[in-house]
């Protein structure tokens, strides 16, 4: 008699699961969306997909009786996707319209701007400090 307790469900290997997830990322459907038709115009959205995962395991040393003192394993992963362009098919022809991620561009501009300002400020401070006499020089001049 087969009961739920006796029934053994085969467990998938985590590595195989990870590889199957990668295979999903590698399929064309992950990057190219369903074509949207509006009159004579067809639009295919394109996006970039990236995915990464890692896993590891380890065990502790053996005790006096030869039993393992401990073991552990863990894993993690992440995925991201963002729109890159749109393919527009019309009666006149096919063209690719890029998609600009304004938030990313503004953040990169702000970060670079702040970095430039700090660096230039540091250069000016260095120049000023090289012109000004140091405290040790002032002390020596007072002593003499």
């Amino acid at each position, binding site marked *: 008699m087969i009961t739920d307790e006796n029934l053994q469900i085969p467990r998938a290997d985590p590595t195989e699961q990870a590889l199957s997830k990668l295979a999903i990322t590698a399929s*064309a459907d992950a990057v190219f969306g369903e074509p949207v038709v509006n009159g004579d115009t067809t639009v295919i959205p394109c996006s970039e997909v990236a995915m990464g995962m890692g*896993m590891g395991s380890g065990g502790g040393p053996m005790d006096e009786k030869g039993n393992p003192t401990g073991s552990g394993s863990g894993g993690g992963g992440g995925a991201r996707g963002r729109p890159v362009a749109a393919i527009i098919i019309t009666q006149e022809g096919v063209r690719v319209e890029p998609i600009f991620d304004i938030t*990313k561009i503004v953040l990169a501009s702000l970060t670079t701007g702040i970095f430039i300002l700090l660096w230039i400020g540091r250069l000016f401070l260095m120049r000023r400090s090289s012109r000004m006499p140091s405290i040790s020089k002032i002390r020596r001049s007072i002593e003499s």
Partner: protein
Amino acid sequence: MQRQLKAPILHISETRGSTVETSNKQTTPIGRVVQVRLPFASVSWHRPLAVEVRQEGTTYRLPIYDATSRVISLIVFTGLVTVLVPFVIRTILLRRRRTS
């Protein structure tokens, strides 16, 4: 002894999306997959590469550019040049002053 097939660490391949057929042309989007497979980790990067258009017997490819990445690279490059050029000029001037 059975020999096991080893998967390559770096695997680059092309994928083709479903072809869209309009009145006089066939459009097929093409993507590129870069996969890095290690025993303990794996990374996959898939991005659109081009569009292949087949029209009246001729086939041509339109490249798909990642505009956002290009703009960000340009901003970062401009920032580095803006910082490095005054620094290099200052260093050269200081060395000249020391030698003279």
